[in-house]
């Protein structure tokens, strides 16, 4: 069930009607039942995996709390790691590693007759696995107490608004809210409607309508003109932002209607000054997870330059692989790691400060810096969107090889295609989204708060207009959220 489909509207209406009639524990049971139904709509079979993961970490958490023996504690956390990462590894990466091994063996001149399994990726596995894992690790590190209620914990794992595509919540943040849900009536935050409307608009009106343009180019980049590749890459940058952050917005908005606050997942990422800033603004729940459970345990910023750079590269490589079992995601992770390493030297800060020193030119310099970094992000998106490694190479070559640009020739083709006005409009929308982030640098939460504080007639009319636009401009066959595949 997808947030932007009619059946979710019916599901939500029925659910909230029942929710309003219940109190305390009954509400928790209703929420758990609804969450399992929501997940079961994709696959009832894989619901057992979700339930299995819940049981595993709940009992590991309880056992960790009962013992102070370091050996036993290590054994318990190893069980959790093997259980969670084992399931993730099998369902997500098994075929990838087998395929890669076969390719390697055949390149070495040997014949490999290996039959890969037809493994279906359970939706949301990357998200809920990281969520349950963070709980076990927090209990192991004694950063929180283990949950004493299987119902509370099951809700923390399966809470349907964020179950299949995040934000990846931490037990320290979400679990106490689930506990309170069973004990008291949490105050409803009606501003959730504003965030939902903005999220629907971003996903349905912007992302879904940009998608065909991107697909046209990326489906066969070999024959595409270089300026078309650039345009499609800019468009993809906005598509993936509006798609993914739109999902997060709807998840946050729906949760607020329960009185539950989820963490902010995006904050104007294209307004970032550099790679570190970008990762403080893009998929914040994943980047902070990787920081806390991978980068810092690897050593973090402690140690020498090479040691730190190794940690950054490893973290981002694994972050890339988290997105999907394909080499282009590994390459994307490597590229992100490389950006973090290259932007790290202190002397760069000195250069930046000198450039930004004159007050009059500072806004221009800052804007140009953000614009330049946005282009570096776009190179990354080209790697991310490419369908295979061959396409990665072709796209990057077309983007950087000036001799292929021939903009005047391309504009003649654009005129012949009759798509000129449509492309100009799309480009204006794409530029508008990016420029708004560079200038305002605020997330949808802030925009929604402002909208919610506006005079009531304006607020109501805007919400109605946004929702109606979502109905009117929905494509005939709406594509699913991009991050569902991860």
């Amino acid at each position, binding site marked *: 069930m997808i947030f932007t489909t009619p059946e979710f509207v019916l599901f939500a209406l029925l659910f909230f009607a029942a929710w309003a009639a219940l109190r305390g524990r009954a509400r928790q049971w209703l929420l758990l039942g609804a969450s399992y139904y929501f997940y079961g709509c994709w696959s009832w079979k894989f619901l057992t995996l979700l339930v299995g993961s819940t049981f595993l970490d709940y009992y590991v958490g309880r056992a960790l709390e009962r013992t102070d023996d370091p050996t036993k504690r290590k054994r318990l956390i190893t069980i959790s790691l093997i259980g969670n990462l084992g399931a993730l590894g099998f369902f997500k990466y098994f075929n990838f590693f087998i395929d890669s091994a076969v390719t390697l063996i055949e390149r070495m001149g040997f014949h490999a007759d290996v039959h890969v399994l037809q493994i279906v990726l359970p939706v949301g596995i990357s998200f809920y696995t990281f969520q349950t894992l963070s709980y076990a690790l927090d209990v192991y590190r004694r950063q929180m107490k283990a949950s004493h209620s299987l119902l509370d914990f099951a809700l923390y794992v399966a809470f349907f608004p964020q179950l299949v595509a995040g934000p990846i919540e931490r037990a320290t943040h979400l679990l106490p809210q689930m506990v309170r849900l069973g004990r008291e009536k949490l105050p409803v935050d009606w501003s959730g409607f504003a965030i939902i409307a903005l999220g629907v608009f971003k996903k349905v009106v912007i992302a879904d309508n940009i998608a065909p343009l991107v697909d046209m180019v990326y489906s066969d980049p070999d024959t595409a003109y270089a300026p078309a590749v650039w345009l499609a890459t800019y468009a993809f940058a906005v598509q993936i932002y509006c798609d993914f952050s739109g999902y997060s917005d709807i998840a946050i908005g729906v949760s607020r209607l329960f009185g539950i606050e989820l963490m902010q997942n995006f904050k104007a990422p294209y307004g970032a000054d550099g790679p570190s800033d970008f990762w403080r603004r893009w998929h914040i729940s994943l980047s902070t997870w990787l920081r806390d459970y991978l980068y810092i345990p690897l050593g973090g910023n402690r140690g020498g330059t090479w040691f730190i750079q190794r940690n950054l590269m490893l973290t981002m490589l694994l972050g890339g692989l988290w997105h999907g079992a394909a080499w282009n995601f590994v390459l994307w992770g490597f590229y992100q790691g490389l950006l973090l390493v290259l932007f790290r030297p202190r002397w760069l800060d000195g250069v930046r400060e000198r450039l930004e020193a004159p007050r009059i030119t500072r806004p221009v310099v800052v804007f140009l810096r953000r614009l330049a970094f946005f282009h570096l992000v776009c190179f990354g998106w080209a790697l991310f969107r490419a369908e295979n490694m061959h396409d990665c190479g072709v796209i990057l070559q077309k983007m950087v090889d000036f001799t292929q640009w021939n903009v005047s020739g391309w504009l003649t083709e654009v005129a012949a295609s009759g798509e000129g006005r449509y492309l100009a409009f799309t480009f204006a929308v794409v530029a508008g989204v990016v420029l708004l982030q560079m200038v305002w640098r605020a997330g949808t939460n802030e925009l929604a708060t402002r909208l919610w504080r506006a005079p009531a007639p304006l607020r109501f009319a805007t919400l109605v207009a946004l929702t109606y636009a979502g109905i009117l*401009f929905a494509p005939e066959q709406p594509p699913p959220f991009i991050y569902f595949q991860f």
Partner: protein
Amino acid sequence: MIRHLLYIAPTLAALWFLDDALSKHRTAGWERNSVINSQKRWNASSEFDVVLLGSSTSADWLPPAELGRVMGVPATRVLDAHINGCHQDCTYAEVRRLLAEGRHFKTAVFGTNLFQLCEFDNSKRVLQQHMMLPKSDIPHLFSMYLHTAQPLRNMMRFIGNELSGAYADTQAIQDALGQKLFGKRNGSQKHRWVRRQAPPPKPPPTCSYEPDAIAYKKALSEAIMDDLGRLADEVYLLVLPDVTLDDPARAEAWARHRALHQSLVESRPYLKIVDLSRDGAHAKKHFRDGFHLSPEGIRIQRALFAKRMREAEPVVRQ
């Protein structure tokens, strides 16, 4: 309360007017207009003997004059009740509307294509149902939706149509708005901003004929045949050809398609199958786009239809 109503009421009223205007707009609402035009033809007379139902693939080669000639009635006694893109879901609603209006015919003719058995995602399918189905039949329609993979989605699409006139016509509205904003676009040259070569033409729609894929249309087909038995004394179900007839990969689907329709005849003595998918149009040159007939295909299918009707045993109601 009154203070809130002061802004809620005008906003909702403005939305209602906008929605109504969009859904009735001459160019924006062409799917809706297609249904309205068919209904105008119903209302032109109450003296029809023969009714032709189905989509354009049933009607564009079989105009009232031709159908009347074969059936031995004047063209004025033939009701062309076809609607563009009117598959089983739409015909089901149309027949129930005709029944609710107290219509009765001597003969009903309904044509069906293979690909129609799988397709019901297009928003106009629900729009057609919403526009024609009598309200009292909504529970029965919802019971039909239980045969689809996503019954809740389809129920909500129907409810959405009830709430918003523009909802199911969004594709047409988007096309009309796009034309206003970006000018008339040339589909055959669209690719040129990306690459010089045109993309390969899309294959014509078809149907896998997997049991799950056809469950909904199968249930609808049975319901339509029962309803047609009440609407007319005799019913002819035309199995229409398409360009995949000669494709060995589609042979299994075609066998299942014919068998499904043949199974409908059992226990329905008023129903006759007219198989126009054998010995008629089959080659690429017989079709304009894979399922609509070319002039040569039309000539072949008219002759075949006349022959099949001559050979058909008369319908005897028990």
